[in-house]
């Protein structure tokens, strides 16, 4: 294998022979140490260190390549358990990939055993704080009381009462947001094998007008998926009437649940 012009791109590792029909011209599988690696050849020009630096600034390219990465893993996971690898995991040769399968074999097998018969689902919750405020402003007695008091107060006292009112509104707002996020997460966690909370993402990433208030992922046993989705429906009915939007997606490759245990900095 001379191929200075090409690199080996690893998409995922599977425990059964992956069916990659139809993707055969861009993919192949490598069997080693009782594991199957799904890989493809990519051009050094695009994925070499220099090339990748340039390409990562080209958002359309990133979007297309990352979309392909996802599509390939989804195809493989339709009939086997998979460990998804991070975007642009590259090797010089098939042999260096095999060496990696040798080195991490035991860990990969343990992860695949854990993932057997399970699916990753995601829940992101959004809300518009201003709209949420208008929903509870009229129904809060304490706030109306302060408002009445402001009307009959001096300028100075009125100033402090207004401040008190604003603080009260913020507190109620935070309580509402926390209640929605915490309750949704806890109830779904009970139906999951594992669950995790990820960092919130800003609007230029979410491409939504509302703020993200929860970003969570769940590893759900296949037998529990129906219950999990029923709970999502229940939460939607309950919270969407209160001004929240629940966005549940899946099943995903288990991106959030295949960290290599005990290795610092892995999958974090």
């Amino acid at each position, binding site marked *: 294998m001379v191929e200075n012009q090409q690199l080996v791109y690893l998409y995922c*590792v599977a425990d059964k022979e992956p069916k990659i029909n139809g993707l055969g011209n861009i993919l192949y599988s490598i069997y080693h140490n009782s594991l199957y690696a799904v890989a493809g050849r990519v051009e050094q020009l695009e*994925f070499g260190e220099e090339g*990748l*630096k340039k390409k*990562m*600034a080209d958002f359309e390219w*990133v*979007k297309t390549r*990352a*979309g392909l990465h*996802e*599509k390939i893993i989804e195809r493989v996971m339709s009939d086997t358990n998979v460990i998804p*690898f*991070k*975007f642009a*995991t*590259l*090797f*010089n040769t098939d042999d*260096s990939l095999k*060496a*990696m399968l040798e*080195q991490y074999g035991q860990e990969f097998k343990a992860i695949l055993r854990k993932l057997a018969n399970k699916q990753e689902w*995601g829940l*992101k919750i959004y809300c518009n704080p201003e709209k949420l405020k208008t929903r509870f402003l009229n129904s809060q007695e304490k706030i109306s009381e302060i408002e009445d008091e402001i009307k009959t107060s001096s300028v100075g006292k009125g100033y402090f009462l207004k401040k008190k009112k604003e603080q009260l509104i913020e507190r109620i707002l*935070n309580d509402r*947001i*926390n209640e929605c996020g*915490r309750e949704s*997460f*806890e109830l779904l*966690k009970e139906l999951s094998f*594992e669950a*995790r*909370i990820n*960092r*919130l*993402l*800003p609007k*230029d*990433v*979410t491409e939504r007008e509302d703020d993200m*208030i929860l*970003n*969570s992922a769940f590893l759900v046993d296949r037998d529990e*998926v129906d219950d999990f*989705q029923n709970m*999502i429906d229940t939460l939607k009915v309950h919270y969407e009437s209160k001004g929240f939007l629940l966005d*549940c*997606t*899946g*099943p995903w*490759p288990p*991106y959030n649940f295949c*960290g*290599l245990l005990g290795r610092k*900095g*892995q*999958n*974090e």
Partner: protein
Amino acid sequence: MNNAVIKSKEITLLEILDRVLDKGVVISGDIVISVADVDLIYLGLKVLLSSVETIEKLRGSPFVGPMQEAR
């Protein structure tokens, strides 16, 4: 299975950033480009993601205690 929560066919920018680029197994060893190097060249993406932490700080930590990290 409930149809209401089936994932749409086209993967969104959001999910690309949140899953494909941010998660998945990371290995070291005999790979061409170390992932640390790749991280550094996320350029625009990195800027987007760093603004996330700012938002969280501004908001205060909404979920504290046992919910904080479910790793």
